[in-house]
């Protein structure tokens, strides 16, 4: 059973197409990873699910309810931890949680009990009665997470919850997310940290340019690549012509598949090998055509390889490429109420 269903979702900010026919199905009670570079459309999709934004077109369903028609009911069962932590610097952490409790109409006794429970669980005792303005990024994020969990939501939406966090805060948040997942809360976690999604997610989707390009269980996606990942460079700084020649050559080697030229990384070649002997014989194949092995790395497939396979570039390269193209001012303006 799917708890979240997005169908053919489109959303643009002026000339920028943020969502371009996004489709997504999140199973109930799962921790679902939403992976993609900054600017791929993750936050826009999450804001639509949270009723903060309307799509230009498409269908959004949460818990069997149409988000565009039953906003209030959706909000009752939803916890949202935004990418930019929005806290009132003048209030103390406890006062912010109390305000949050009142906005969700919790009764006084339950609110008090629940706040104490979360303060304990997220290890906030030492600083919760200080003003939020004095908090570090990790403290703010933990407080924000506590706010999102105060009313025990059925669905928790986390937009890049561990960006820029210290190891201790990240570990506390990861621990809590694992605990929540075991308690059947549906969690949608957007991230551009591969290891985070790999570690936490039951299932995941990779989003690129506003649409899902791969989805499934992280292990299955890696297995689907069908072998170990090899990165080869024949010179320190190769060029397109040379890279294409090498690609042509190694494509024909038995046991090699999915050869991709990675332009951003000096025209290196990424490919999969099904057998270990392919690597030991690789040098021989290359020397026949007067190519040398300048650098060679061999690893088990990672989610970055899944991303690379689907898009032809690594997640980091995609980040850098998109960073230059985004008009954050326009996006903020368009998304500001």
């Amino acid at each position, binding site marked *: 059973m799917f708890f979240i269903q997005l169908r053919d979702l489109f959303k643009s900010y002026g000339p920028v197409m943020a969502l371009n026919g996004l489709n997504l199905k999140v199973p109930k009670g799962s921790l679902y990873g939403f992976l993609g570079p900054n600017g791929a459309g993750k936050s826009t999709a999450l804001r639509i699910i949270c009723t903060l934004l309307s799509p230009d077109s498409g269908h959004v369903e949460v818990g069997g309810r149409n988000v565009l028609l039953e906003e209030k009911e959706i909000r009752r069962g939803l916890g949202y931890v935004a990418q930019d932590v*929005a806290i009132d610097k003048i209030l103390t952490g406890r*006062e912010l949680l*109390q305000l949050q409790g009142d906005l969700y*109409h919790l009764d006084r006794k339950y609110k008090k009990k629940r706040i104490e*429970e979360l303060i304990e669980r997220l290890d906030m005792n030492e600083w919760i009665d200080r*003003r939020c303005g004095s908090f570090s990024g990790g403290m703010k994020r933990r407080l924000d997470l506590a706010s999102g969990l105060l009313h025990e*939501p059925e669905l928790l939406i986390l937009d890049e919850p561990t960006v820029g966090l210290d190891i201790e805060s990240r570990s506390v948040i990861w621990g809590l997310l694992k605990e929540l997942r075991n308690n059947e809360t549906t969690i949608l976690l957007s991230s551009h940290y591969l290891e985070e999604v790999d570690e936490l997610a039951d299932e995941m989707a990779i989003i690129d340019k506003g649409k899902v390009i791969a989805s499934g269980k992280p292990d299955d996606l890696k297995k689907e690549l069908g072998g170990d990942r090899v990165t080869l460079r024949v010179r320190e700084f190769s060029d397109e012509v040379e890279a294409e020649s090498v690609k042509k050559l190694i494509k024909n080697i038995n046991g090699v598949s999915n050869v991709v030229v990675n332009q951003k990384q000096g025209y290196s070649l990424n490919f999969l090998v099904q057998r270990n002997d392919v690597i030991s014989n690789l040098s021989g194949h290359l020397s026949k055509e007067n190519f040398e092995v300048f650098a060679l790395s061999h690893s088990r497939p990672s989610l970055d390889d899944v991303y690379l396979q689907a898009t032809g570039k690594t997640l980091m390269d995609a980040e850098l490429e998109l960073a230059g193209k985004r008009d954050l001012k326009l996006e903020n303006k368009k998304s500001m109420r």
Partner: protein
Amino acid sequence: MITTNQSLHKKKQSRNDLNEMSQEISALTWRLFIQLIRRPSTLFAGILQPLIWLLLFSALFSKAPIDFLPGSSSYGEFLGAGLIVFTAFSGALNAGLPLMFDREFGFLNRLLVAPLSSRSSIVISSVIYITSISLLQSFAIMATSALLGYGWPSLGGFLLIAITLLLLVFAITGLSLGLAFVLPGHIELIAIIFIANLPVLFASTALAPISFMPEWLGWIASINPLTFAIEPIRMAYHDSVDLRAVLINAPYGEVNGYSCLAILLILTVGLFFLIRPLLNRKLA
């Protein structure tokens, strides 16, 4: 231990819509008061500025002929009503700023993602807060004015002052909140506040009666909402409060106390209806 027992939801959440709305309004209002208590500079600045005006202007025009000030025995007494209204007006004009900052810093999203019984609670809490602060500041000016010997109204007069200020504050707060949703950022809102504040004061009867003004300014002053608030308050300082009395000798005719209040009421209701669709759209 974190639990997620969804069956408890309905028990934990109050079922009564009115209770829910009052819970969210009081929480949101209390938040604004906490901000004020911890950062009281705006409250004091809002009182100090008109007080300085009161002291300086009354000294500046202390030798002005009394004859041109209808019903007042000194310029300080004449000026008092204008500054009470100006204080309330300035305070209400700033009403949109906290909301604008909430928009800019994303705090409004925290409110909008919550299952508020009514999103009007966000606006109502701002109105309650600004009204309380504006009235408090105005009464501080009244008290200082009394200490300087410029008089204190009767009970009826006091009531009239409270009603007049409430009408004005509601209208201007509504306008400011509307602007806070329309304008792109706080810089633009502050610019409008900066531009509007003093010209609106000078183009009213706060500092001089209409008879003392050139004709063109007299016209502007006699349609300025501040004038319709200033004159009833000026009357409230007199011994007898009679709303049938003519308070403004405008170029277009005479305006009595009832008409002043009716115009303020129409302005408040009109502005409310004007910004309502905007708020509905922005908070939908």
